[in-house]
């Protein structure tokens, strides 16, 4: 119970930090610390509108699923050294949460029966076909190095050296994938301004809160997972492991936002080419390199 509450709390905290930092960078306004909380309150007080002939059931399922999946993905991150759900396939679990998001986001776009929302849903899936394989290879590369799909084991395997040293490509691909599945920053075409907010365009009130908060929590969770898989998780001198994990997570969040907001949206058709012609081979070569290191006994 306590651990579930911790996941909830850390998830909300990281999501709020991500949203606040993002807002601050986006508007060059440093006073935005309370913005996410204020916005959440405002959305709670706002009417939940509907559209003409929506598929209400699927729409609601899509909206509710986004935050649930976000917290589900955080459940396998060993925040206190151990995670809420410690399984023998944590990494695949994280991957699955993120893939279930395909369905959730598409449903959120499909539900309202509106052109822009549906276009956003299509874009999300199209983009998914681009970032998904590199992301999978990145995740599996960390598992390969550790010889285990359990997140705690992956952290334990980084006792001597962080995986980012031998897996820089996988680290970058993972962060890119995180931007992709959270449709944020350069990969935010599914919620783009050119389609009036895309999958978000018809959401108001608690529905919008659900999707926006879920997305922020997912980004925070992805940053925590990146710190876990590639930056040694809780490893570090003096401070307790949880503190180190959170510090690293915050640094990843900061780096993501600074890098992601420096550029415009990359249109999906452009990204598709790069993903399949550059990223997939690059992540495969990365996995091959790590496999060779594993065989040579480099990781002990």
């Amino acid at each position, binding site marked *: 119970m306590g651990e579930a509450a911790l996941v909830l709390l850390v998830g909300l905290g990281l999501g709020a930090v991500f949203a606040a930092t993002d807002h601050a960078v986006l508007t060059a306004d440093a006073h935005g610390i309370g913005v996410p909380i*204020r916005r959440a309150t405002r959305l709670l007080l706002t009417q939940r509108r509907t559209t003409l*002939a929506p598929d209400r059931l699927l729409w609601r399922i899509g909206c509710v699923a986004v935050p649930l999946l976000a917290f589900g993905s955080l459940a396998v991150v060993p925040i206190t050294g151990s995670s809420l759900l410690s399984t023998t396939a944590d990494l695949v679990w994280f991957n699955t949460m993120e893939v279930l998001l395909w369905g959730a986001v598409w449903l959120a776009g499909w539900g309202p029966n509106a052109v822009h929302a549906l276009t956003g849903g299509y874009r999300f899936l199209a983009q998914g076909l681009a970032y998904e394989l590199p992301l999978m290879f990145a995740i599996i590369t960390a598992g390969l190095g550790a010889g285990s799909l359990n997140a705690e084991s992956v952290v334990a395997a980084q006792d001597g050296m962080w995986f980012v040293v031998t897996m820089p490509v996988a680290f970058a691909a993972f962060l890119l994938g995180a931007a992709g599945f959270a449709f944020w920053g350069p990969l935010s075409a599914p919620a*783009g301004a050119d389609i009036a907010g895309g999958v978000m365009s*018809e959401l*108001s009130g608690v529905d919008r809160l659900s999707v926006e908060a879920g997305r922020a929590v997912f980004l925070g969770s992805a940053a925590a997972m990146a710190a876990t898989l590639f930056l040694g998780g809780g490893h570090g001198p003096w401070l307790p492991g949880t503190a180190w994990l959170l510090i690293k997570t915050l640094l990843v969040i900061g780096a993501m936002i600074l890098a992601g907001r420096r550029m415009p*949206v990359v249109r999906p058709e452009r990204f598709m080419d790069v993903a399949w012609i550059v990223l997939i081979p690059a992540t495969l070569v990365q996995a091959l390199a790590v496999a060779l290191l594993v065989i040579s006994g480099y990781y002990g």
Partner: protein
Amino acid sequence: MELRGRLDHLARRVVGWAFARPTVLVADSPGTTVLRWQLEAELDRRRWPIARSPADADLLLVLGEPGPNLQAALDVVWSQVPAPRQRWDIQPGADISTALDRSHAALLDMARQPEPRTDDPGEFLPQNRSHDEHHHDDDHDDGGNDGDHDDGGDGHHHDQQGHEHGGHDAAGLPMAGTAPDRDGLELDSLHVRLGPVLPSWPTGLVIEGRMQGDVLTGVHASWIDRPAPRRPGDPGDPDDPGGLSGLRDAGGASGLRDAGGASGLSDPAGVSGLSDPGGVSGLGAWSDLSAEDVTLLDWLDRLARFLDVAGWPAAATRTRRVRHDVLRGGTVNDARADGSARRTVRRIRRSATLRWSVGGIDAVLDRVHQWCDHVLDGVANSRGTTGSEGDAAGPPGGAAGSPRTWTDVEALVDGQDLAAIRLIVASLEIDTDGGSGASTQPTPSTAGQTQMGGADE
């Protein structure tokens, strides 16, 4: 009792805090461009965000006096704004700050006394416009089980029926049918209408077409509230008030030009002349803005809106801030505006990601780069210095490869996907103040819902 009073007080404070920075949807009627700039400057100063769609808006601010059709479109937009909400008209010359204060106060009042409100979006849609004659023999839509899904004949048949109408109406919306797509596949096809009110879209412009996936074909472009026949391809008659106003001519020579003067629209704020960067006319109350300033503001405005559409909000915000500085200073000689303008615009001009992401669509990138060059030149000239990295810039207004007629525009956007269409439109120098059309900028979206409904025009 006392506890109740305290709780009420607390609730009031929470509402006040939650809605301290309402999200704003701006709808600008023709001839209100400068008013919009001022409003946006004030909104940025207050840190009130601009909404991307009606669903996320608290305030709908209507600038100037929209024509009847735009008014109708705004009614639909308004029906999509969730409560608590306020709709406020701001006329040129009005005190913007007061208007914002009042609308905000009214919004808070409404938020504190929530009244159940249910607008049926369907009420606003032209449901019963006689489509019935098209309704014969659509029975193959009913089953969907007789194995004729990929029968090409069906699609053609629909096609002939009228492109906006693939099958039945459901809930007042025309259903999608199937038709051969750009690549020859038999795909779902829906008649879609972009505009007249969308974020960073020239308010009043309507682009209609058949959408398959997100590709639009059979495109038809028009202006709302412009009665006279505008015929694409006509060798625009300069004196034709209903002519091809709206499409600003790049060279400034052809008859396409600016309806600002030709249509005899008298703009209360007097800034209709924007269409012609060379000679701004009728500044009226804003006569403290020099012609160069207005031109510079115009470029900055177009640039900011393009960046919004291109999905680079950080750069768009910065560009808009430069615009606010210029607007406030009334001159580009303001050192701060100058410096930040250069830095901001240079960064956009040099952005490799922008070049890569946007490149390949028509000449969009060239036109945007020219705006950047113009801004840099404008800043340089006003400082009495010359030269900038972009001396490729031709005479002001001479955008590269600008289409000259509406047919050209339609040809440009036909067969493109939604993103490309938005980018192309954002890169065209469309004069929104002209004619009795409508004006510009971050405005509501009549997102899909309404457009699907408003299927004919």
